[in-house]
């Protein structure tokens, strides 16, 4: 048992318990407690990370959980390897910074200890999900992060939108999790084990059709948790939660659990790289990247833009999974965690400064009043748009060139178009928020630079958003590749991109930025998207009517089915049976009641008649 690893997830657990049970006695300081504990956890993760580089840390069992068959017991077992430690460092590091930010962001909250208890507990669940040695344990914590996501989206539960957004996230994730459970059962049927490494060792025994089925079921879980088509609509709604939650759970960590899960099970996915499942994964990823980026063009809510851009970036990661380039996916996951956490936190700082105004059309010119925040946001947007030499540039470029090298030109083209959109909506968000004229009806006098406790994490994340890309440079042989290759075995990419293709991969982001500047930086009042794109723009604004389509195709039929069940099953059958039985009893009772007149002599007479009848019967029948 490695103490550094244990304390990585034990410390946040202690923090959650302390804040949960004792937090009400030190409300104002609960954030400091949670943040300090996260710092300890981050340090432990770093220590474990470097220990592992010196000499590999063995996996260890926490306790035996439950026996399943004579030969296999599901254990609470911690799998320590390069992949899980990389994720752990990211989760605790970004988590720590977001905790620090949240101390400032939640300072007006009446009961912040509840928030920090959930937040710490989320980190515990996420870490144990990452460290899971077997699929059942992974599923438990997969559900655990889902639960914490539900609780944190609905943190302001008295707002009906927040409560229903939490419900939506939970229910849509259930759809995906069905796939996860079925895949686990299917694997157990063949191997009689849940252990990921054991399954990876034996996986060659499986026929191709079974592998395709299992990987598709696992991918269904990914579409739920990592917000892919068709299950992504919960993620934009999840923005009802406090902004640090959006940054930590719905951008940096939880939604990437699907990417991690596939990477963790890469032996299964590697087996038949040309089967239909990979086509499905690639197509879904490319479509999600494109569709979500298109929707992000039309959003005015600053958090909604970022939410759709998260979906879009997750689509890029899934594309990488679809062509079997897991390290590229994890690379983008890590850089995305840095720059998207940065973007969400700066958005949170803006929202905090604007007293909970999220509509970008009511902002403008904020760069003069909060220059540091603006600088951080611009850095985040550059990384998001893939501006050369920022973090997003390296990782997105790695994915797009991998897709092209694996000979999927259509997916590559969709990715390029999505990258153009990304550049455009990033620029639009920057310009609407920080430049141009002040557009709100309120006077901007009260808006000041972000408090220092919130600014420090922003600056650290900004440095990461600029520099983290160099971990994966040069492509295919950078530090991160060397490190992860020990754990993640993926087929080597053959060939090199031609200069034209390489240019085609880096240009879209720049084109998007240029277009954004062209349309938004010129005029004093920004043109609405509808004006730029015509009727298609309206589709973007209306989120491609996906919510309405789901409402019509799934929610309404379900409601009709429920009504039918209510009228036929409940009303007609159950109530009908009960009511008719009641009528029989009531009718019998109303007749029998007349016997009970209350006349003593009538009662006696019937008693006597009964006795006489009894005697007569005995006399006639004999003894």
């Amino acid at each position, binding site marked *: 048992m490695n103490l550094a690893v244990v304390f990585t997830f034990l410390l946040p657990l202690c923090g959650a318990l302390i804040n949960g049970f004792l937090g009400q006695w030190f409300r104002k300081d609960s954030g400091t407690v949670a943040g300090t504990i996260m710092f300890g956890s981050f340090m432990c993760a770093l220590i474990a990370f470097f220990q592992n580089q010196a000499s590999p840390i063995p996996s260890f069992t926490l306790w035996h959980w439950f026996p399943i068959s004579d030969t296999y017991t599901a254990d609470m077992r911690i799998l320590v390897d390069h992949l899980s430690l990389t994720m752990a460092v990211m989760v605790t590091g970004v988590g720590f910074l977001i905790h620090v930010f949240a101390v400032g962001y939640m300072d007006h909250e009446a009961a912040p200890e509840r928030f920090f208890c959930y937040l710490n507990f989320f980190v515990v669940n996420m870490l144990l999900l990452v460290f899971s040695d077997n699929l059942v344990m992974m599923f438990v914590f997969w559900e655990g992060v889902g639960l914490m996501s539900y609780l944190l989206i609905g943190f302001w539960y008295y707002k009906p939108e927040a409560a229903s957004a939490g419900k939506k996230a939970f229910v849509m994730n259930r759809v995906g999790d069905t796939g996860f459970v079925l895949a686990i059962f299917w694997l157990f049927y063949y191997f009689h084990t849940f252990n990921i490494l054991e399954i990876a060792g034996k996986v060659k025994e499986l026929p191709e059709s079974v592998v395709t089925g299992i990987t598709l079921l696992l991918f269904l879980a990914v579409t739920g948790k990592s917000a892919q088509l068709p299950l992504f609509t919960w993620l934009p709604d999840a923005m009802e939660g406090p902004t640090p939650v959006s940054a930590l759970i719905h951008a940096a960590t939880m939604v990437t659990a699907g990417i991690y899960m596939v990477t963790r099970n890469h032996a299964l996915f590697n087996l038949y790289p040309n089967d239909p499942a990979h086509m499905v994964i690639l197509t879904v990823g490319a479509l999600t990247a494109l569709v979500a980026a298109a929707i992000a063009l039309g959003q005015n809510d600053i958090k909604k833009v970022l939410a759709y851009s998260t979906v879009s970036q997750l689509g890029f990661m899934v594309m990488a999974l679809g062509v079997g380039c897991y390290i590229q996916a994890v690379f983008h996951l890590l850089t995305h965690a840095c720059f998207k956490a940065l973007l969400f936190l700066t958005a949170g700082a803006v929202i905090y400064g604007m007293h909970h105004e999220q509509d970008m059309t009511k902002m403008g010119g904020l760069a003069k009043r909060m220059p540091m925040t603006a600088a951080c946001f611009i850095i985040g947007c550059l990384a998001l748009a893939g501006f050369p030499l920022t973090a997003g540039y390296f990782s997105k470029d790695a994915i797009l060139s991998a897709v092209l090298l694996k000979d999927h030109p259509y997916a590559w083209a969709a990715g390029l178009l999505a990258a153009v959109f990304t550049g455009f909506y990033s620029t639009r968000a920057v310009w609407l928020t920080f430049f141009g004229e002040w557009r709100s009806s309120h006077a901007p006098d009260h808006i000041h630079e972000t408090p220092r406790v919130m600014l420090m994490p922003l600056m650290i994340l900004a440095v990461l958003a600029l520099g983290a890309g160099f971990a994966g440079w040069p492509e295919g042989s950078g530090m991160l590749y060397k490190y992860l290759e020990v754990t993640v075995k993926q087929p080597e990419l053959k060939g090199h991109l031609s200069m034209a293709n390489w240019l085609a991969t880096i240009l879209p982001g720049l084109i998007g930025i240029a277009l954004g500047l062209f349309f938004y930086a010129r005029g004093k009042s920004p043109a609405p998207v509808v004006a730029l794109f015509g009727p298609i723009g309206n589709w973007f604004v209306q989120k491609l009517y996906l919510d309405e389509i789901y409402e019509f195709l799934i929610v309404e039929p379900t409601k009709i089915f429920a009504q039918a069940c209510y009228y036929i099953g409940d009303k007609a059958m159950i109530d009908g049976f009960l009511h008719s039985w009641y009528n029989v009893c009531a009718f019998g009772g109303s007749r029998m009641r007349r016997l009970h*007149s*209350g*006349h*003593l*002599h009538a009662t*006696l*007479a019937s008693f*006597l008649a009964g006795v006489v009848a009894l005697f007569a019967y005995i006399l006639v029948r004999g003894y």
Partner: protein
Amino acid sequence: MIPVSHVFLLAGVIFSIGMLGLFIRRNLLVIFMSIELMFNAANIAFVGAGNMQANLAVVSDGFASVPFVMAVAAAEAAVGLALVVAMYRATGDTDVELLRRMKG
């Protein structure tokens, strides 16, 4: 020696008087006394039967039953008289027709 049939006849007559009283009287106290009369008619029948068994020189169950009936009658008298008193207090009368109302 009185014949057994005479004893049973006496018991039958007393029982019938008691039952008649039970049926035709409306005064709760009299009804109560009629019930006592029926108890005692049964007791007389027990004694007659016991006497018959004694003549046959076997152990007599009839005599043994009599004290039980007396004990039950005594207990019943205690409860019954208490009910009569309670009814009189509640209604100021002992007419059973008044008991049709099921409230105090």
